[in-house]
């Protein structure tokens, strides 16, 4: 599933980290009123209001980029942390 971070080129992991830091800011920016309000124009895409389509695209875009970054940033498996014995 997750790529071994060490297998990528050396700068890849560090760039992925920076991207992961910027992602929420980028998402927030795309939702700010000056950016989103123009899409509230009376226009439709296949019968769906443009602003709804825009919002859905931003949302799924965040999901997709987060999923991509997750593949790169996933910590290596097998954390040696056995659950404590229960009584």
């Amino acid at each position, binding site marked *: 599933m997750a790529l071994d971070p060490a297998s990528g080129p050396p700068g890849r992991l560090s760039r992925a980290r920076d991207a992961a830091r910027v992602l*929420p800011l980028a998402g927030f920016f795309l939702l700010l009123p000056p950016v989103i309000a123009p899409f509230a124009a009376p226009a439709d895409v296949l019968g769906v209001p443009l602003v709804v389509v825009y919002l859905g695209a931003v949302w799924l875009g965040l999901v997709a980029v987060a999923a991509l970054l997750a593949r790169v940033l996933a910590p290596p498996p097998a954390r040696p942390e056995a*659950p404590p014995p229960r009584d």
Partner: protein
Amino acid sequence: MFSANLVLPIALVYVALLFAVAFVGDRRARAGRVEWLQSPLVYTLSISIYCTSWTFYGAVGSAARGGLEFATIYLGPTLVFAGWWVLLRKLVRIGHLHGITSVADMISSRFGKSAPLAALITLIAVIGVTPYIALQLRAVTTSIEVISSAGPEEALGIAPAAANAHAGFWIAAGMALFTILFGTRNVDAKEQHHGVVAAIALEAVVKLVALLAVGLLVVFGICDGVADSFARAAPGLLHAPEGFGTRWVALIFLSAAAIVCLPREFQITVVENADERHLVTASWLFPLYLFLITLFVLPIAIAGLSVLPQGSNPDMFVLTLPMWAGNDGVALLAFLGGFSSATSMVIVACIALSTMVSNHLVMPLALRFRWVHLNASGEVRRFLLASRRASICALMLLGYLYFHYSGSGEALAAIGLISFAGVAQFLPGLVGGLYWRNANATGALAGLVAGAVLWAYTLFLPSLGAGVVFTPELLRDGPFGLALLRPQALFGVTWLDPLVHALFWSLSANTLLFVLGSLAREPRPIERLQAALFVDVFRTPAEAASGLIRRTAAAEDLRVLAERILGGDETRRFFERAAREQGLEYGRPVANDAFITQLETKLAGSVGAATARAMISEAVVLESIGLDQLMQLADETRRAREHSRQLQEKSGQLEAAAGQLRAANARLQRLDQEKDEFLSQVSHEVRTPMTSIRSYAQVLLETPGLDPDRARRYVRIIHDESVRLTRLLDSTIDLSLLEHGEVPWARAAIDPEAALERAIRSCQGLAGARVRLQSSERARGATVEADEDRLCQVFINLISNAIKYNTNPAPQVTIRSALRGGAYEVEVADNGPGIRAEERDRIFSKFMRGWAYLQTGASGAGLGLAISRQIMRRLGGTLEVVPGDGRGACFRVTLPARAPAAA
């Protein structure tokens, strides 16, 4: 439609299913088989307790009233999870390392395990979340009323004025029972509840499937496809740019804050997290879940507004639309979905809040007033479980009472947002504490108090309605008629939306006081320590703390304490493991700093950091914190920077040292080589005379009748060779002494010309008639500081060399002396073969003879020039070869002359 007699059994069967899942989940977890229980999928699904009945029913209601605004509540969490790397990862890591049990525990741990802070946060959480629990009870009872349709009113989704109190009570009781059964089985470290999490994951699936089913029914059953469902919308609903203003931004921010600060979200995301990698999956899967669950909200809202009769309750569209369409199956599924979302929220919220109440409110009081007997084994543990169960009942009762006595007027969404704004007050302390080292408990307390008071004053109390706490006059004119202090228009800010208004003032005051309070005093040592551990959690190992807090305690006291909280078995296991780790075969572990810290963390997993610290402090005899190390640890960045600077410096020094070493090594090698050469030269020089001495001596010994003339000649040769040998050895010793400078010289002011004259006179014999010695210009009256004999020795050496090695048919040696630039100079030039350019550097080396030596038969050890140069060095002067003009060699001796006055 359905009779109440049918709905209740179905709900009960569903509840039974949840009990079964929780039971199986718990059983498997105890047996150590946690495979699917601890999968990223279950983790992500359990996070969806964020989507309560407020989402299930309320999102549609919100969309019907405000269009796209409902989406903000899900966009904030989407951003937070997509940005998991920044905040959630840190929270989860700290949660794991420090055994954090709740959001109150997290904040109070950060600020030096402050008990008052934890209590305050617990109090705010209880006040903020109780209406939320009431909201779930209302949603469930209303949905029961609606689906069993006692009358036309209910079919519109409008709950009767007096909501069915009986149903509400029994629902609350059932939830309390479930929570107590599966939420308080143990006071386990890490506070994980696998059974509950399994049941909640199931409920997450049910509510998603239910909402999607309703959505599909609405879009393709009631409306004619997607385009038609949007075409029915009122024109202003989705095409209004003015919907995107401050409230839009504020709501995104608020929901982002809530997903971090809500006690139940913190419980699931941080406390129940079993593996950091699950968070990585949740970072995109949870936003996807949110996207899917809100996918059909708009079509459902639009359809509800267009097909259902005027006056229908938008908060119940999800249920009333399938009923209106006559689809009983989907209606039932919708009911179960709403029921699921309500119960899962209440259960987790109660677990989280009861943990906080028992750890941060009840336990500190119990310790102070000695409610628990501190000497019976497992006593504290039993007390904790009892207090948690009691807290759950109390919370549920509080929620029920709120539900029972508050009217039915409030829209679901408003209550949810008020609750969000309440818990958002934790945000400055929580986030500030994670990234700002100097943040301290004073700031956190001041900020929280101010934020909570303003939240209550501007939002919570007014929301209860005029006349409940605030009189209508106070709401309209402000307290004592002070218009500036009107609760919903503080300082004359009348143009903001009430929620944005409250959020702005409360969070601003909160943040401001947090910062000012933190700047007002130095952090205490324990705060500094915790700050270093939390802020630099990815760089500072938790064990670093154990070396900083110096504590001594009797192992027996610690064992008694642990037994009270963990119980006998767990304590025995813990102590045995610690003893093994310390390398002890049997018996009790040594109560050293590391062990006490380990035990404190273990206890903190059950009772919270503040209480654990208080308890450990009772057993501890002496405590001190290593301030110096702490300061070092605390300023991690500075330390890292300092470290890298030192490294750089060191590497520079190392490089320089390596260079020096290389040079020294080269010099040593050269010296070694010189020594070898010197030794072999000496042996060689000594061997030649020795060989002739030995062979002539042998001849004398072995030839009895040697004629006396030959014998005398041989003896003469032996004598001459011995003299030569002695001279050679004398020179060697002389040179060695000169080089090591061991013999002090008598230096006096002399006239160098006298020494030069003496040398010329001694060389006259050597020169004889063959070589012409001529003195050209001479410096008269010069005075130098020197040993006259030694200086004379140098001159003799130079002049005799010039005579001996001169192969010119008309040999000639010229001696000049002069005073030049404060120095006395003597030049000895000849017209011999000269010194080759490549020899100039080495001509002063020991045993070095110029090529001129080869041209003549003159003997010489090759030490003269070496000795002369050493002498001149010791006299503070120089001896050098002057690049000759044409044929011949020219040596120049320079000595600093004494000031003319002295001359």
